[in-house]
């Protein structure tokens, strides 16, 4: 798989490590009511869709940026990639 890095162009996915669903960027508020249950869902539960999936890849052997890659899990086709730092942390998707 080749990942279209917004700054570096097409890069081999082997240069990256994979973390998982980009929803992990939406960390729950620890001070909110029901935070324990919210964190439990956050840490352990996943949508795990068959189809389009937004996911976090870390360019470990490159510029060490985090990307949000949009990829189809049924074909491995990569539909796009954005710098995670450009996406607003904690913003509702």
């Amino acid at each position, binding site marked *: 798989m080749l990942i279209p890095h917004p700054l570096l162009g097409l890069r081999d996915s082997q240069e990256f490590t994979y973390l*998982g669903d980009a929803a992990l960027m939406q960390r729950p508020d620890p001070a909110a009511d029901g935070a324990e249950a919210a964190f439990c869902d956050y840490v*352990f539960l*996943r949508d795990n*869709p068959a189809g389009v999936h937004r996911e976090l890849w870390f360019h470990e052997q490159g510029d060490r940026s985090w990307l949000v890659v949009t990829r189809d899990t049924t074909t491995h086709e990569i539909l796009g990639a954005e710098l995670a730092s450009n996406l607003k942390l904690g913003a509702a998707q």
Partner: protein
Amino acid sequence: MKFSGFKVVKEALTGHKGWAPLWRNPAPKAEYDIVIVGGGGHGLATAFYLAKTFGELKVAVVEKGWIGSGNAGRNTTIIRSNYLLPGNQPFYELSMKLWENLEQETNFNSMVSQRGIINLIHTDGQRDAYRRRGNAMMISGAGARLLSRDEVKQMLPFLNFDNARFPIKGGLMQPRAGTARHDGVVWGYARGADARGVDIIQNCEVTGFRIENGKVLGVETSRGFIGAKKVGVSVAGSSGRVMAKAGMRLPIESHVLQAFVSEGLKPTIPGVITFGAGHFYVSQSDKGGLVFGGDIDGYNSYAQRGNLPVVEDVVEGGMALMPMIGRARLLRGWGGLVDMSMDGSPIIDKTGIEGLYFNGAWNYGGFKATPAAGYCFAHLLATDHPHEVATAFRFDRFERGYVIDEKGVGAQPNLH
């Protein structure tokens, strides 16, 4: 029709006219007591043990393709009970005991072959860890042997013992481990279940669940609605997308695991060898092919095929461990969907929906679990109580903090 040596000889002499299909192909009935979703090894074993132990129940297995077309027919067939943690090991040891009697129980040759497994040791730290694991295995009755370098050398003289990075210093062996013929397991359970009245319905995809007031009433399928008092979902790599139809999110990610087989060779490898440090394991099939694999690709996938970097990683491991493998030609490679969980361990449990039950999260190791998973899932479906060796495999273990994390890597499925 009963299989026996006598029957084989008789059929050979009378033109093979007395063989019958191993199971019927019935149309779905309007309603069953229990509908099992997924005709892999687990679903069929569940139906078999339900019919055998709780015979009065009307049971159907609903499979979207043909039975055994998922992981049951794609795995590398290793069976073993060499786990460490108390939540796991008694379960896998029950499975091993069921394997040992499977052919008698199903009257079908599943080619269970207890040729032993050896996990290679490269460092003192690893030897300590494996000694501890071996002790846990002995406590559970599974048996274990810690092998010296010389003992490994006697059994597996073709390994590269002096690899600079991972010299072989010994091994942990479970002599009772080995392999079984994966398709034979599927067919044996299917035939046994069918003979006891279970309807095996192929080419019938579950497209949804009918749920009213928090209670399941049956499944919507590509062949119409099928009513059920209870529904047991056992769809392995498809767990996420099937349970989503019941509105559930799971502690699971679907990943792809690849495997490979070489051309047929004369017998060279006595049992199963695992080279964990190098992401490589290998055994030899009865046809002579070297069957080997390594790690999962590592990203979410429902594609049932992997990518080349893992092919390279696996064969590098093979070359480092047993350089002679470089002379064998690769015949085939393939991928299967594995349901990787947040702690690397399985779930056999009720759900929050009355009458809906789940068996899954088998990661890359559910083939060996087939008999016990079927046995325990049948027990849960029939009695509403977990079997005593499966009490730890609950959904709520994550929120309660009782994860069963053999590798100790945390909630990161691609690391288990």
